C-alpha cells in the first residue's frame, strides 16, 4: 500500500520535473547567442544578470508568496562583497569570490528572514523596504570601505582571469560566457529545488499557510530556508554585476532597483522560473529600444504598463498598453501630447473597464469555441477520410 503511494508520488514529481521541448529550445537559443550575437554581449550580460536577480525574487514571490520591496539589499550586498574581495585581493579567482558573495548575502537573508515571518503583507513590505534602506544608509555612511556615493573603484585591478585562463575582455565576450554559465547552473539548481517535495510544500504555504501547518509542514522553517536561498541568489547576481562591470555603487542597493526587479518579474510572470528571464529580456530590450526615442518617457510608460496590467490582467493589459504606447510612437506625438494621450486614456480605460473586461471575456469564449469546433471538425474529416480509404 505504502509502496503504491510512493511510486505514485514519485511518478507525479518526475512528471512535473520533465524537461519540455520549449525549455530545451530556450537554453539552446541562449547558448547560441555566444556565437550568433557577438556584438551584443554587453547588453546580454546585463540581461542575464537581471534574469538571475528576477529569478531570485521569483523564488520567494512566485513560490512562497512573500512580497518584497527591498530585494536590492541582497543584490547590493553581494555586489559589494564581490567587489571588496577582489579589491583587497582576498579572493582573486572570480568564481570562488562569487560563491562567497552569495554566502554573505544568504547570511544577511537568513538574519533578516525572521523579520519577514511576522505580520501581514504590509508589514513584510515595510520590513523588506526598511532592511534595504538600512543597507543603503550603511553603505553610504561607511564611505571609506564602500567608496560612498562615488562607488567602489579599483575592482578590476586585482581580479584574476576566470580559472586563471579567461580574462574579462573589453567587449565582454568572456564576461558573457561566465555570466551565462552561472545563470544556467543556478537555474538548474532552482528548477530542481522547486520541483522537489520542498518546492511543493512552499506552494502549499503560499496557498494557505494555516492549512499547510495543519498537514504537518513546518511553515516558518520552510520560509526561512527559501528566503535565505533567494537572498543568496540575489547576492550572486549582484556579485556578477560587480565583477563584469568592475564596479559597485549605491544604486545597486537602491529602492529603484528593488522596484525594477519586481516589474521584470511581473512582466515575465511569477511562479514558473522562466518569468524572470523572459521579463529581463523584454524589459531590457524595450528599455534599450524606447530610450532611443526619449528616456524621459520611460518611467511614465512603465507606470502605464503596470496599471494596465493590474486593471486588465497581465496579458490583455500588456497588449492594451503596447497598442496605446505604440500608437503615440507611430504618430510621432510631441512629448506634451503623448503625456496627455496616455493620461486621458488611463481615465477613459478606467471608466470603461467593466465593459472592456466583459468584451474580452466574450471574445475569449468565442475564440475558444471556434477553435474547438475547428479541431473536432478536422478530426472527424480526417477520420472520415481514413474510414473511406479503408473502405476502398
Amino acid at each position, binding site marked *: 500500500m505504502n509502496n503504491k503511494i510512493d511510486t505514485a508520488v514519485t511518478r507525479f514529481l518526475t512528471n512535473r520535473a520533465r524537461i519540455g521541448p520549449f525549455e530545451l529550445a530556450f537554453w539552446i537559443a541562449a547558448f547560441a547567442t555566444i556565437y550568433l550575437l557577438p556584438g551584443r554581449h554587453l547588453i546580454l550580460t546585463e540581461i542575464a544578470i537581471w534574469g538571475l536577480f528576477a529569478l531570485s525574487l521569483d523564488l520567494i514571490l512566485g513560490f512562497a508568496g512573500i512580497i518584497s520591496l527591498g530585494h536590492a539589499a541582497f543584490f547590493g550586498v553581494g555586489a559589494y562583497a564581490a567587489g571588496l574581495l577582489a579589491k583587497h585581493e582576498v579572493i582573486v579567482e572570480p568564481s570562488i569570490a562569487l560563491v562567497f558573495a552569495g554566502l554573505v548575502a544568504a547570511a544577511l537573508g537568513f538574519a533578516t528572514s525572521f523579520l519577514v515571518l511576522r505580520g501581514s503583507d504590509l508589514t513584510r513590505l*515595510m520590513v523588506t523596504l526598511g532592511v534595504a534602506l538600512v543597507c543603503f544608509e550603511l553603505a553610504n555612511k561607511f564611505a571609506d570601505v564602500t567608496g560612498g556615493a562615488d562607488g567602489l573603484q579599483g575592482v578590476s585591478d586585482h581580479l584574476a582571469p576566470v580559472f586563471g585562463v579567461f580574462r574579462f575582455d573589453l567587449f565582454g565576450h568572456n564576461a558573457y560566457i561566465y555570466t551565462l554559465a552561472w545563470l544556467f547552473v543556478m537555474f538548474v539548481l532552482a528548477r530542481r529545488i522547486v520541483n522537489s517535495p520542498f518546492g511543493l510544500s512552499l506552494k502549499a504555504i503560499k496557498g494557505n499557510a494555516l492549512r499547510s501547518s495543519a498537514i504537518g509542514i513546518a511553515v516558518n522553517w520552510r520560509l526561512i530556508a527559501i528566503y535565505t536561498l533567494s537572498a543568496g541568489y540575489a547576492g550572486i547576481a549582484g556579485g556578477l554585476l560587480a565583477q563584469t562591470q568592475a564596479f559597485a555603487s549605491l544604486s545597486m542597493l537602491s529602492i529603484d532597483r528593488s522596484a525594477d526587479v519586481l516589474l521584470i518579474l511581473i512582466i515575465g510572470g511569477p511562479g514558473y522560473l522562466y518569468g524572470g528571464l523572459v521579463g529581463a529580456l523584454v524589459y531590457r530590450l524595450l528599455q534599450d529600444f524606447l530610450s532611443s526615442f526619449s528616456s524621459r518617457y520611460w518611467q511614465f510608460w512603465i507606470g502605464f504598463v*503596470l496599471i494596465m496590467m493590474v486593471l486588465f490582467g497581465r496579458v490583455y493589459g500588456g497588449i492594451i498598453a503596447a497598442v496605446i504606447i505604440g500608437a503615440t510612437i507611430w504618430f510621432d506625438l510631441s512629448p506634451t501630447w503623448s503625456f496627455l494621450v496616455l493620461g486621458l486614456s488611463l481615465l477613459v480605460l478606467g471608466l470603461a473597464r467593466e465593459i472592456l473586461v466583459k468584451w474580452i471575456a466574450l471574445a475569449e469564449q468565442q475564440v475558444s469555441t471556434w477553435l474547438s469546433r475547428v479541431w473536432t471538425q478536422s478530426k472527424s474529416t480526417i477520420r472520415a477520410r481514413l474510414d473511406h480509404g479503408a473502405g476502398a
Partner: protein
Amino acid sequence: MLTILFDGVAYGMLLFVLACGLSVTLGLMNFVNLAHGAFAMAGGYITVVLVNRAGLPFVAGLVLAFFATAAIGALLERILYVHVYAKSHLDQVLFTIGLVFMSVAAIDYVMGSSQQFVQIPAALQGQFDVFGVGVGRYRLLIIVVCGLLTVALQFVLMATRFGSRLRAAVDDQRVARGLGINVGAVFAITFAVGSGLAGLGGALGAEILGLDPIFPLKYMIYFLIVVTVGGTSSITGPFVASILLGIGDVAGKYYFPSLGAFVIYTIMIVVLIWRPQGLFARGATR
C-alpha cells in the same frame, strides 16, 4: 534642546497631516496605497505654481492645494482605485507603484527635476525668542495649522454622524454594509479628504521637506512608518507615532549626524518585530 523638540513637533505634525489619510484608507479598505505621497507632491506643486507664478497669496495657495488635491483624489478613486480594492496586495502594490512612476515622470517633464521652493510671505520668515528658545515663525504656523486640523479631524471622527459611520466601516465593513451604511461613498469621501490633507501637507512642507519629483518615493517610507507604527484603528495612534517619528528624526539628525536616517529605520524594524500590529493597535481584529 527645546528648539530641537519644537522643530521635531512641527515636523511630526506635518507628517501626521501627510499620513493620516493613508492610515484611514488602509484601515478601511485594507488597501496598500504607495501612491499617497504623489498626492502630497501634487499639492506642493500646485502651491508652487499658484503662489510663485500666478502670484496668489500664500494662504489662498494652501486652501486651493487642499481642494485641488482632494478633487484629483476623488476622481482617481472613483475611476481607477475602485477596480483594485478586491485584488491581491501584490496587485495593489504594482498599481500604486505604477501611479507613482507616472506622477514622477509627469512632474519631471512639466516642472523639471530641480528642487522647488514656495515663496513664503516675509511675515512668516525668521525666528523669535520665547524664554531663550528659538521659535521659527513658519514652524509655529505649521504647528498651529496642523494642531487645528487634528482637533477638527478628531471632532469629525468622534462626534459626527459621518464619523461614526466611518468608524463602523473601519471596524467591520460587512456588518456596516448590512446596517445600510454606504461604505463605498464613505470611502470615497474619506479618500478625497485624505488626499486633500496630503496635498495641504505637501504644500506646507515644501519648505521643510523639500519638493522635487522623487518626493513620493523619498517619503513613502515615512508615511508607511507612521501608519504601521501607529496602527490603523484610530487617528490618535498615527498622531502619537508621527510626533515621535518627527522628534526622533530631528533629534537623531542633530545629535548623531553620522548615523542620519539610520536611527529611524532601526526603530521601525524593532517596533515591527515587537508589535507587528502597530504600537497602539487594539489587537488584531481581522
